[in-house]
């Protein structure tokens, strides 16, 4: 299923994210996806997330597709040059994968192979441009593709709560210009900022999925504030999480917060993207609470 079509139909698209394991056994991942992600439209599969080497995104996408889910193939520019990227894109098309999320990718230094050569032959914008070229039947070298060109829903990311919104908007505009069809955002904890951002982003006319990371604990909130780009959990929310002391209730507050954010932002966006980070089991509850 090409999620662009869903957006065009005006559907509120819900997606969730899974990360392949560092190994070859993905039974657990498949099991979880089949159990908890039945309520979502599409499933993002990360590409060596945080520059940590893992099982490939493309292979995982294929397995999920065979299990009846709709995968979104995440592709970063960190590990492959333009030849490998285009080749993988063709492979994805051949395997029937229709949805992409195209990113620059974290720097190699951030992960578990800091000595690796950071490639960045292309970046998110030029990668989107490249996909668009492939769709037109040509590769980046100007050569014609044989047979039917691929067709993808070309996703990109944006950080609405970043320190410099103008820079984000400018970059978003470049991505739109290059051919992005839809956007997923970085985790949002400040609905008012998101709404303001969306008022400006409206001009591009591209669907945007609100990014949600369930705040699991005070520690996680503080960690994100200190380390994760474009994410800020407000103090009031941290206080709220602090109150959630009782073990048995653990997580409930976080889910409540996440649901509240979704409800607040829903009128301004075209979907939601949930990054559960191990809490896939809570996704059904969250969606229920958020009335989706």
């Amino acid at each position, binding site marked *: 299923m090409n999620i662009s079509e869903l957006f065009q139909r005006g559907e509120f698209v819900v997606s969730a994210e899974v990360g392949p394991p560092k190994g070859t056994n993905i039974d657990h991942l498949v099991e979880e996806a089949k159990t908890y992600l039945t309520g979502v439209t599409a499933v993002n599969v990360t590409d060596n997330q945080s520059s940590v080497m893992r099982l490939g995104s493309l292979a995982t996408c294929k397995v999920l597709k065979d299990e009846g889910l709709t995968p979104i193939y995440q592709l970063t520019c960190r590990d492959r040059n333009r030849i490998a990227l285009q080749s993988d894109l063709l492979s994805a098309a051949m395997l029937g994968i229709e949805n992409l999320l195209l990113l620059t990718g974290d720097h*190699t230094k951030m992960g578990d192979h*800091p*000595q*690796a*050569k950071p490639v960045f032959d292309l970046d998110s914008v030029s990668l989107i441009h490249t996909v668009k070229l492939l769709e037109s039947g040509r590769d980046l070298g100007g050569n014609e593709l044989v047979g039917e060109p691929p067709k993808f829903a070309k996703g990109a990311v944006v950080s609405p709560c970043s320190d410099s919104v103008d820079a984000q908007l400018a970059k978003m505009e470049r991505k739109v210009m290059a051919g992005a069809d839809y956007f997923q955002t970085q985790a949002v904890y400040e609905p008012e900022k998101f709404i303001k951002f969306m008022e400006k982003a409206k001009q591009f006319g591209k669907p945007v999925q609100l990014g949600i990371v369930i705040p699991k604990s005070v520690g996680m909130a503080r960690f994100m504030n200190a380390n994760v780009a474009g994410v800020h959990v407000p103090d009031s929310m941290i206080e709220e999480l602090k109150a959630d002391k009782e073990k048995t209730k653990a997580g409930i507050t976080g889910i409540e917060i996440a649901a509240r954010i979704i409800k607040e932002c829903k009128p301004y966006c075209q979907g939601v993207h949930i990054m559960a980070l191990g809490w896939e089991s809570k996704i059904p509850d969250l969606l229920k609470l958020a009335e989706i």
Partner: protein
Amino acid sequence: MENYTKYKLKGNDELVSLLADKDKVFVIACNKCFKEFETIDEPDCGEFEKIAAEQGKTITGSAKVDFLCNKTQTEKKLQDMIPEGTEQIFVISCGLGIQTVADIAKVPVYAASNSLNYTGHHGMALTKKSCDACAQCYLNITGGVCPIVDCSKSLINGQCGGAKNGKCEVDPDKDCAWEKINKKLEKQGRTEEFLNQPVQVRDYSKVNFKVVNDYVKSIREERFAGYYGGVHPTENKEFSEHISLERFPEPKVAVISMSQHLGAPANPIVQVGDTVKVGQKIGEAAGFISAPVHSSVSGTVIAVEPRMHATRGSEVMAVVIESDGKNTLHESVKPNKGYEDLTPDEIIEIVREAGIVGMGGAGFPTSVKLKPNKPIEAILLNGCECEPYLTADHKVFMEFADDIIYGLKAMIKTVDAEKGIIVIEDNKPDAVALMEAKIADCDNIEVVTAKTKYPQGAEKMLIKRVMGRQVPRGGLPADVGVVVSNISTVKAISDAIQKGMPLIERVASVTGEKIKNPGNYIVKIGTSVKELIDYCGGVTDDDVLIKMGGPMMGFVLSDLNVPMMKGSNGIIAINTDQTQEVACIKCGRCVDVCPMELTPLYFAKLADEKDWVGMRDRNVLDCVECRCCDYICSSKIPIVSKIKAGKNAIREMK
């Protein structure tokens, strides 16, 4: 030599589209690092102007600037360069130059050129790339052939299998690097060694801009500490700095030159056969800028004749005295009143009569310095001793601290200065500590510790470093309210007042890696250099370079039968250096190190063309001959000799 370029004008189409919505353009072209070594003017500038004119654009002006990337200098040059009404600046240079302008200018700056990945680095390697600076040198396992640069794929574990007839698959004109490596290892019998190497995996995290930037920042702080330019030659002070000061044995014969100072030589006032005593005047000052000369021994005058002069390289009138070994003092040598009870004029008279001249080397008569016609704020005591090897001033600090302070106080009184500042480089912490302790109760004297850098002891640099003031072109320190004096000179002033002893001896180092037993000595003026060296055990071998003074500004001595003089702070015997002059590669390092902010590379070129006017226009007369440019020159061009020739020619023109 092959020509090279670092940037190239962007293509016509790109420039036209770049200019499309713009007008009132100012053009700046970097005048250096471009295609032809012999080209004087940047040709791309005119080409760009032509393209702009064809597009009907107004050009508000253009300029060609040397080494645009040199921010310190470019900032000054750009100050008044951009005319009113300029809406944008187009820069033709490498990316460094463009960004330097973009950083400074207030209007948008555009690049009219692309930087090329020119292949090579400094020295002579500009036209051939041989090192990629990977931060993990593999040359040790490849027999000295770089696999990163030479192999198209930068393979580090052996060849790829793509080589055909020993040529690279990427470029059939290029030898396969691994074939070269294998051959070389085989020839050296090191194949086994290579085979036993562990698998090599490159670490790409080693090189990052941040690490490099941090390096550069720390280096830059040191480079520009206090004043622009300068260098850090190896100090080599360890040969003599720990050896205590000794009195050098009485010379049998003293050859006392009548010209140990700047200005007119003194006139001898003794004759052959005369008996003279220690401290007796034997030469009379011959003008305002001149100084009297005294006997350093007691004995008989055996000759009054021209003798070889160490720093002039020719014979100069001298009085030769055979010592009687008795060291009888002349009756004129008697203590004066304390400086507190002397008037400034009396002090000046004592200093003049004692024959005191600048003992740092230049030999300017001190009494003249003590009569500045401008108000003086501070006396700077130069205790930097920035020349490598020399440790004489260091010893003077350690042995004569009280005399230095006495002399300084006398100077402060004489010129009515507000304060005295003793400047010591940070490589002499014991001297700093001692002087700080000694001045504890003087409220108008302070000690400043300066980061070691050559030529800190040059007076203009010293003033800039300590006072933050720039001596105007052709001016004197007094113009900025400063009198600079060497510490040995101040000690001599103290001796002249307190003991009534004229300048007849000084502290000098005899040092260098080629001296058998280096040392620091109180030496009588007139003592032969040969005697000094012999006393120190002689030189270790014949392959030696002997200089009077330091390695930077010292004078080469081909004849050791020359006497020590008032300004002789040391004798060094060092390794010789065999080089030959090659063509200038315009590396610009001389510009980077010139503390007077001149462009020495042009002096070398213009001197060869005998273009003295051109040299004068580039302010060659400002050159202090510190030899930083000689020192740094990667083409080994004797720039300062050429500068001296130019200066002489200009003086003759007048």
